[in-house]
């Protein structure tokens, strides 16, 4: 099973087209292994992205450097998956 320990989901708020473009640049960087849950479309629309633990600091630094605001929507993806799995197992056992 793939592990998502420490993966975070960030909500990025790009205020203008230039910031949207900057986020698109991130999307092109395959080595960051970003998973866009909501793609960068246009200014004003939220962009949600799952960021793996090893790249989280560089992604946040990139956003801060470019003055792009973000918030953490999911602190640790794996803990939610564990919860989900536990609940399914509990129902199956019942």
């Amino acid at each position, binding site marked *: *099973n*793939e592990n*998502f320990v420490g993966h975070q*989901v960030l*909500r990025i708020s790009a205020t203008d087209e230039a910031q949207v473009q900057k986020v698109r640049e991130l999307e092109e960087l*395959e080595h960051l292994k970003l*998973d*866009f*849950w*909501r*793609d960068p*479309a*246009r200014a004003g*629309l*939220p962009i*949600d992205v*799952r960021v793996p633990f090893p790249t989280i600091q560089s992604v946040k630094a990139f956003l801060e450097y470019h003055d792009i605001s973000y918030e953490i*929507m*999911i602190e640790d*993806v794996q803990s*939610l*998956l564990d*919860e*989900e799995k536990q*609940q*399914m197992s509990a*129902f199956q056992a019942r």
Partner: protein
Amino acid sequence: ALSTDAFNYATYHTLDEIYEFMDLLVTEHPQLVSKIQIGSTFEGRPINVLKFSTGGTNRPAIWIDTGIHSREWVTQASGVWFAKKITKDYGQEPTLTAILDNMDIFLEIVTNPDGFVYTHKTNRMWRKTRSHTEGSLCVGVDPNRNWDAAFGMPGASSNPCSETYRGKFPNSEVEVKSIVDFVTSHGNIKAFISIHSYSQLLLYPYGYTSEPAPDKEELDQLAKSAVTALTSLHGTKFKYGSIIDTIYQASGSTIDWTYSQGIKYSFTFELRDTGLRGFLLPASQIIPTAEETWLALLTIMDHTVKHPY
């Protein structure tokens, strides 16, 4: 579960469990429900569709699919709930009864079975199909960019490693081609509703161009009514509009193709939530999500029956 009454609708299920549920439902309601296999997936699994019909030959029909993106688990779970709801309400609830007395309903609960199994066994975050692309180590195609509608235009990727990879050619994915073949050979589908999550949106064509669809006014009015019905149950707010205006440009998408085939009432839902949990929606929200979505579906289906074309 020994019967679909005992089935747990408030938890997420595996493909095997959902397929067993479908068989059980057919056994319990042989006069109303049948199972059709419209194809086999890349990895060889059956692609099953439930047909709800009260008789007639090649009646006008409504198509509903859930789970074309495998990680959007609340959609497959809602599909299961819809199936049960149809069997419970036929003959009891006047709107659904009138719909089924005039039209058939086709429901494909797990539209991307290989991807769905992969989300359970290996990677909960998997979205695409599981097909292989020659010359690439990356697996899968986005089945919502693989349709023959502005295929290859902006709004999809040509990179096999991208989550929105469109595939080598239109209908390259058997999961897509099977629906295309079914819809074209049926020839009498009047509404086509494809269900995704998340974002709380009800969308209509187009995704590839900002040109308004010829039926935009009617679709917009209908979307407004459907969203009003949805919101009336739990207060969940939905936005509505064309794909390109509401979210982003997307080419090769499902409902752009169905609309191009003359299926006027072509809609895409994006169910709960707006990003707090995203694809990891707690199972406690399955039933409320399905219940409210059902009201919107009923509005669209009712309109379809009452406005023949």
